């Protein structure tokens, strides 16, 4: 299976569209960074408009850590699209090219085939996320400097000390990797049912967009189904950026307000990944290859 995995990885990185994905995300992040470099203060003023009526908040608010947080929030749809571009093509693309029948008539088990393909798609996903981390975090830190991060949430604001942030980003990116692997698994799963990657890509993005809409609207009937939607759990990386306070309302260095939420969401995403890949294996094993 390792050889199969290497060949799948080779195919992914031989395709121009793979590099287009990296270029696209680079362009997006750079545009956000340029925008914030130019008008970061205005953006901060807008975000803190309500708090600013009562408080003076001084310091390097638009620092690298804050910029990275903004980028990660804003790329909620874009990064999954770029993941789906590759993952949704893994099986359907082979069917479309006509190479699926050639591949599956070789002495390789279909289970190994599916797992090797998903593993290769996962590596692509992780590399894309590492690239996002380098650009969004390290380059932002270099351009904007570092300071405490000040974040506004629905019910309160959180200030996290500068020395208490970097490890949170490591955790957040690990979690984001899990979230994006879930997207990859979904796209990969949908790829079984088409002979053209457009369908699975559109289906993946439609599911993510619709589920995100359900997740964001506070309508009672939606609230009942929210816990079961993977999009609800994909944003749990933000929990790394909330701290506990002690009895004196002092934030506790190195703490996370809801670690249980992170763990629960991680487990749910892992379950989704296993489910999607498991069904993909079962589905391809049973499938008649007519393409």
């Amino acid at each position, binding site marked *: 299976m390792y050889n199969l995995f290497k060949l799948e990885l080779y195919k992914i990185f031989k395709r121009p569209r793979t590099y287009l994905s990296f270029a696209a995300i680079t362009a997006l992040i750079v545009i956000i960074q340029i925008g914030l470099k130019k008008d970061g203060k205005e953006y901060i003023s*807008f*975000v803190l408009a*309500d*708090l*600013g*009526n*009562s*408080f*003076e*908040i*001084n*310091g*390097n*608010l638009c620092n690298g850590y804050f910029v990275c947080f903004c980028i990660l*929030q804003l790329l*909620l749809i874009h990064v999954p699209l770029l993941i789906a571009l590759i993952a949704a093509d893994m099986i359907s693309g082979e069917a479309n090219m006509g190479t699926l029948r050639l591949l599956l008539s070789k002495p390789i088990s279909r289970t190994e085939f599916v797992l090797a393909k998903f593993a290769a798609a996962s590596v692509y996903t992780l590399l894309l996320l590492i690239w996002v981390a380098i650009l969004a975090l390290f380059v932002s830190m270099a351009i904007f400097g570092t*300071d*405490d991060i*000040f974040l*506004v*949430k*629905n*019910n*309160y*604001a*959180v*200030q*996290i*000390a*500068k020395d*208490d942030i970097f490890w949170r980003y490591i955790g957040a990116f690990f979690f984001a990797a899990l979230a994006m692997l879930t997207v990859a698994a979904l796209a990969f799963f949908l790829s079984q049912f088409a002979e053209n990657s457009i369908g699975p890509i559109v289906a993946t993005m439609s599911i993510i967009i619709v589920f995100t809409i359900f*997740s*964001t609207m*506070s309508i009672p009937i939606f609230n009942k189904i929210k816990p079961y939607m993977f999009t*609800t759990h994909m*944003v749990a990386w*933000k929990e790394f950026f*909330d*701290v506990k*306070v002690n009895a*004196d*309302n*002092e*934030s506790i*260095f190195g703490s996370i307000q809801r670690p249980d939420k992170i763990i629960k969401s991680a487990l749910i995403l892992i379950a989704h990944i296993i489910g999607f890949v498991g069904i993909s294996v079962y589905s391809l094993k049973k499938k008649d290859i007519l393409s």
Partner: protein
Amino acid sequence: MKKIITTCLILMTVSFSASAQDADALVKKIKTKLEQVNNYIAEGKMKTDVAFIKAPIGKVKIYYQKPNKLKLVKDKGISILPKGGVSINASSVIGLTNYTAIDAGEQLLNGTKVKVIKLLPLDEASDIVITTLYIDEVQLLIKKSATTTKENGSFEMEMYYGNYANLGLPDKMVFSFNVKDYKMPKGVTLDFDDDMKPEEKQKLKKKKGRVEFIYSSYIINKGIDPAIFKS
């Protein structure tokens, strides 16, 4: 009868002006004490305690140059202070020059008997409407002040003294102020997961906020580079 009333009025006026003079004298005594300090650099910690803000304690340096130059520099990081700034200096509380001091009696404050004196600015342009001082007459220390301003609401300061009591410099100062309800639209926070319990949300609706300064050291009357106040 007329004589009795006249006498009473005269006595009241005299006692009032005497007490006003007492209040004024007390304030002047405090000012004199505080004027021993021409400048200081204080190091300490600042803690912002607002129900809906989670903030870490930060190290601060406070620079003071008589009569009214004051600068707070956070060692690193972001500082959150109430709008209108923080009067973190007793001198600023009694920095008024054109005022009337009124004796408002005595009270027990944290187990200590204090004299309550109200300062009314005579300058109509002054932002301060009234300041109430709670003064320990024996040690000539301002234990607490409550100030109402036109533009920046009301705030209180409580001071706790220790090593530098003789110079009127506190070891700890708590600045309390009123806060409005925190409201942030989801479209701005991009935080759509609101699973906070109602009782937890209720706790965030406290109307008062505090900033605490805990001073670890003072460097007094050693001079300060004027450039610090310019930046």
